[in-house]
């Protein structure tokens, strides 16, 4: 059986989540490996969410936010950009493959981009194989 990765998507309510809706209403095809959690802003994402997701068995984590400058709360994603950059560095130094964590800016009108990013990211995670390093074995 081929490997079907579990990918956690954390999407901001105002842009990426709406973008995902648009991808849906325009009937765009993208892999079903993504499970999306909606948050009010990308800066609401606690880095622990990401560490915990990997521990609980996510093979990849995709974070989506508004384009910098377009944040519904004006500056939220600018903080998030710095914070998530640090998260990425920490994951990298701890020995996690850097490709398993990705941040993308996807606006409400970019249904196409959402579908493309998810397709591409899923393919990338499939190539990386199952994530075993952080996963808690039961």
């Amino acid at each position: 059986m081929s490997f079907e990765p579990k990918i956690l998507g954390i999407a901001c309510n105002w842009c990426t989540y709406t973008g995902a809706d648009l991808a849906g209403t325009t009937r765009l095809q993208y892999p079903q490996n993504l499970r999306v959690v909606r948050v009010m802003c990308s800066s609401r994402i606690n880095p622990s969410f990401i560490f915990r997701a990997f521990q609980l068995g996510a093979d990849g984590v995709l974070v989506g936010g508004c384009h910098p400058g377009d944040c519904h709360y004006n500056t939220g994603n600018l903080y998030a950009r710095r914070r998530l950059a640090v998260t990425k560095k920490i994951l990298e130094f701890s020995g996690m493959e850097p490709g398993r964590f990705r941040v993308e800016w996807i606006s409400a009108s970019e249904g196409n981009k959402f579908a493309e990013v998810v397709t591409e990211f899923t393919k990338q995670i499939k190539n990386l194989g199952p994530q075993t390093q952080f996963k808690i074995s039961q």
Partner: protein
Amino acid sequence: MAISFKQIEDKLKTEAKGLLETGKVSLVLAYGKGYDEKHPMPYVARRPSDADNIVFNEFCTHNMARYMVRYPAGTKMAVAVKAADSRAVIQLIQEEKVKREDLVLLGIPAYGMKNPKTGETIDSKTTCGLYNPVLYDVLLGEEVHGQPVVSPYDVLAQYEAMDKEARFAFWKKELDKCIRCYACRKACPMCYCDPCFIDQNKPKWGEKSPESAGNLMYHLTRFHHLAGRCIDCGECSRACPVNIPLYLFHKKVAKDCEDMFGQAAGMSVEDKPVLVNFRVDDSDKILE
């Protein structure tokens, strides 16, 4: 020129006594006698006569900035600060935990400090490697010049060069040793959260038992919480009873923050901590 610890001790005593006598401060955070000479202890002098109990020698490694947040806001205090400690004070001022006007900083220029547990000399391998306090009101002694200036990040090269599997194995081995005594967070001048995320039950962020999963969650999140704030005093690693080289990870995160945001922690009271700040022109490249 060698550092005269005795001279620093005398000056520390005189300054502390003077400050307490004039009532400029209500307490002085410095070092006092421990159970033997090699093990001095953090000490709080409250009366002028307490100043005689102050000691300073090469084993006085503790970061006294750790104790500042324990006292009610507005307490006037004097703090004995070495190079890294002064950076911790600056960082705490940036974070508005203490006010500059409440503090009298007694700067101590020093090198050749020794770890009281192992006797090893402490240098840029485990700390920021600076010799002179960055911020002080009174300098006890003369500024150190002419000592080799080594980048505190040199020690990282060997770990950055590892492939990711080896690095993961290294951290797994190290973090699995953790017994969750939390000496690292308690010794850290920047860890003042109450309660700490790992002590919370709702939500429960990580396991409390000292096993791989909970240890990884605790330490990675702690590294993250100290990103751009760690001033590289190395106290966490010296406090650790099982010798986990936490300083390596903190150094790495500090280095990345410096590369990405162009600002080191605790260098200027005017700065804002990098993660509660942003620039519109931050590059998206940092996310790659």
